């Protein structure tokens, strides 16, 4: 656990800083209003089964999978629709029973067209045969890893990196700790929070399975301190396991970014461009841990997930258990529809989520929330000012970059120079653009520069 008492921080503390004194944390970061109370009180409820699901064959980082069903074919719930193509890939499964009615290109949340399989629900909810393993803890690490892979589990915090790949580190990179990311540092989102409250023991089981697969003795669960009840619940659930520690973390965005979380909990810094495994760590999100448990125990593939539907623009913000492939418009209806003057619908959180161009987009394994923002809340403006060199972005960049320089260089088209200022270490967390008084679109400029030069 690391306390950050920097020589270079202000001698006069902010309210948030006083409140957080002594908690594990990292250097930099921001305190956006968290707005979690909108949906925090709503327990996870089942969504009405959708009439149609659109299941993209690429919901993860890595190669899209190959379709193994054809149009007109009857499929059951949990049946494989696409087989992984390559090592860094993940299968996808049917989230309803019914008939395949189309295979073709559909837009995803990023606005890209991806090959997807469309199933019409017959509402019979017939499962394909699943392999139950009541004493899953006696299985070998290899068998467990195979189950995780077959279930199509990917990182559910948003990045959607295939979990089985993270669980197969090369021999020269020994792993000694598994971290469960319960920070949920994005404002508004409460999906992981609800899981920690309602499924605490399953999440802890998931962590134990992950530790077994990797053969490690140290497990940590890091939770931001604005969720004290989740901290208490998880502590209770982990009480029997001596090698699992539950830690309260400072409430600060982006506490849940992998590198920051590792720094906060273990004090290790992942070098630039390296991976957590390079410092002996594997990080998994709370939802992923639950999916791992369900895959090991019941053989259940990843066909549903918790999605927080929230924001000032939706009538009843809720946490929903949603089938993969459900359209966003169905979720909005489920939550009572829009309020007046909706300006923006975001897949994910307000800091790193993607603004949707339409509501036909399907929920995927990485969709943690749908955020609806009315006009008043959206800070969308084409107008921005020059950099006044105020240093705010430099002070808060968790990666220790100079966002001001990156934005100025990108604006002038000096992309090569931007690379010299560590352009590719920026993970686009958006903290700099949040604090900038000139409202400079720093993330947009960084992306532009990244697309113009090679790393």
């Amino acid at each position, binding site marked *: 656990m690391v306390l950050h008492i920097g020589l*270079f921080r*202000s*001698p*006069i503390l*902010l309210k948030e800083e006083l409140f957080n004194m002594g908690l594990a944390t990292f250097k930099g970061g921001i305190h*956006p209003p968290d707005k979690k109370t909108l949906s925090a009180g709503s327990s996870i409820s089942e969504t009405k089964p959708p009439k149609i699901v659109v299941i993209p064959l690429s919901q993860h980082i890595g190669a899209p999978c190959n379709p193994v069903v054809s149009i007109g074919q009857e499929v059951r719930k949990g049946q494989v629709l696409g087989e992984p193509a390559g090592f860094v890939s993940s299968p996808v499964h049917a989230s309803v029973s019914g008939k395949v009615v189309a295979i073709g290109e559909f837009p995803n949340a990023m606005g890209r067209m991806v090959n997807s399989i469309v199933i019409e629900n017959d509402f019979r909810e017939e499962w394909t045969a699943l392999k139950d393993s009541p004493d899953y803890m006696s299985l070998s690490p290899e068998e467990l890893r195979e189950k995780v892979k077959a279930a199509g589990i990917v990182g559910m915090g948003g990045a959607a990196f295939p979990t089985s790949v993270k669980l197969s580190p090369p021999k020269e990179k020994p792993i000694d700790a598994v971290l469960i990311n319960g920070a949920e540092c994005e404002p508004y989102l409460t999906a992981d929070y609800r899981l920690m409250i309602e499924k605490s023991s399953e999440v802890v089981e998931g962590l134990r399975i992950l530790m077994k697969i990797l053969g490690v003795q140290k497990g940590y669960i890091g939770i931001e301190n604005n969720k004290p009840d989740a901290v208490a619940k998880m502590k209770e659930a982990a009480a029997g396991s001596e090698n699992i520690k539950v830690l309260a973390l400072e409430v600060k965005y982006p506490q849940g970014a992998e590198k920051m979380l590792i720094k906060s909990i273990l004090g290790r*810094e992942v*070098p*630039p461009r*390296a991976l957590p495994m390079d410092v002996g760590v594997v990080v998994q999100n709370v939802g992923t841990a639950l999916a791992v448990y369900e895959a090991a125990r019941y053989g259940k593939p990843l066909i549903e997930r918790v999605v927080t539907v929230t924001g000032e623009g939706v009538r009843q913000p809720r946490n929903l258990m949603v089938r993969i492939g459900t359209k966003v*418009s169905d979720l*909005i*209806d489920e939550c009572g529809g*829009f309020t007046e003057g*909706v*300006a*923006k619908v975001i897949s994910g959180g*307000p*800091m*790193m*989520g993607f*603004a*949707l*161009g*339409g*509501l036909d987009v399907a929920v995927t394994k990485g969709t943690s929330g749908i955020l609806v923002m009315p006009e008043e*809340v*959206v*800070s*969308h403006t084409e107008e921005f*000012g*020059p*950099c*006044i*060199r*105020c*240093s705010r972005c*430099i*002070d808060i*960049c*968790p*990666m*220790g*970059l*100079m966002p*001001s320089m990156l934005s100025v260089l990108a604006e002038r088209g000096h992309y090569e120079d931007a690379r010299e*200022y560590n352009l590719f*270490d920026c993970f*686009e967390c*958006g903290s700099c*653009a*949040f*604090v*900038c*008084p*000139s*409202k400079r*679109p720093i*993330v947009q400029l960084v*992306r532009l520069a990244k697309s113009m030069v090679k790393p």
Partner: protein
Amino acid sequence: MEALKKEHQLIVSVSPHVKSEETTSRIMWTVSLALLPAFLAGVYFFGPKALLITAVCIVSCMVFENLYMKIVGKKPVAGDGSAFLTGLLLGMNMPASLWSFSPFTAHVPVIASFVAVVITKQLFGGLGFNVFNPALIGRAFALISWPKAMTIWNEPTAALLAMDAKTTATPLGILKEEGVAKLLEVFGDKMSLYQHLLTGNRAGSIGETSAIALLIGGLFLLAKRYISWHIPVSFLATASVIAWVFGGKGALFTGDPVVHLLSGGMMLGAWFMATDYVTSPSMRKGQIVFGIGCGFLTMLIRLKGGFPEGVMFAILIMNCFAPLIDRGFQAKVFGAVKQDKAKEATK
């Protein structure tokens, strides 16, 4: 469904989708507010002339900025408060006596404003791109062009309506020409001297005299995090140490740092001029180097140079070095040092 009809109206833009309340203009107006106590103290001690001169500076700066923007076809942004702030700072850096100096010299603030806003700022590319502090260049230009008018000081009267006042020397002027003994003679004793310097009841530029008011404004900005401690603290600390060691007559370690800290433009410079975002380094470590440089040069000019006061030139000289200092103190990328160490270890 009604929701679907609205689809085409959805805004698609790059994250983040929330932003802080802070804006450039709010910063400018807050800094102006922080200057208010010192400015009011100036008006109190030097009378309505102080108010008039500052008003001329503010109005000229805003008019020139808008005119320039109109002429080059950019959107006028005088509402962002930066021209107002430049005008306010420029006015606070002028002697109140300027108004009554004959021949009448009201054109001085106007021309200085032009130099500050148009030449120093806009011709360098506008807000964010200027190398030198605009208000300081404006003042330096006036000082060089009208050396006499810019160095005649009124005695503070604290009589709100007095338009005429006796002229006198500034404490730093007395210190330079006649030494500390004379300074004590003029102000009575040491305590009385400190008291006058602290409240601002002494000759000097309109806004620089009240050390206590400037300190209040500076601490306010510090608490609001509009400035950080690095520049003012390193600036003032360096100046104090040099004043203490070399400021005395003859022997080392006999100088009086308090007199140096509280007189001249030290407080105004350290809290409000050297901390200008655009013309100081943006890395915190670099800001310490910048502050040390300012403190050193100020004292060098005060003790060895031809002028009694050196704050203005010290800051302007350091402005030139700000980009260089920034280059020398590039940020440490998260995880980078450890990698270097690891590399060395594997060698």
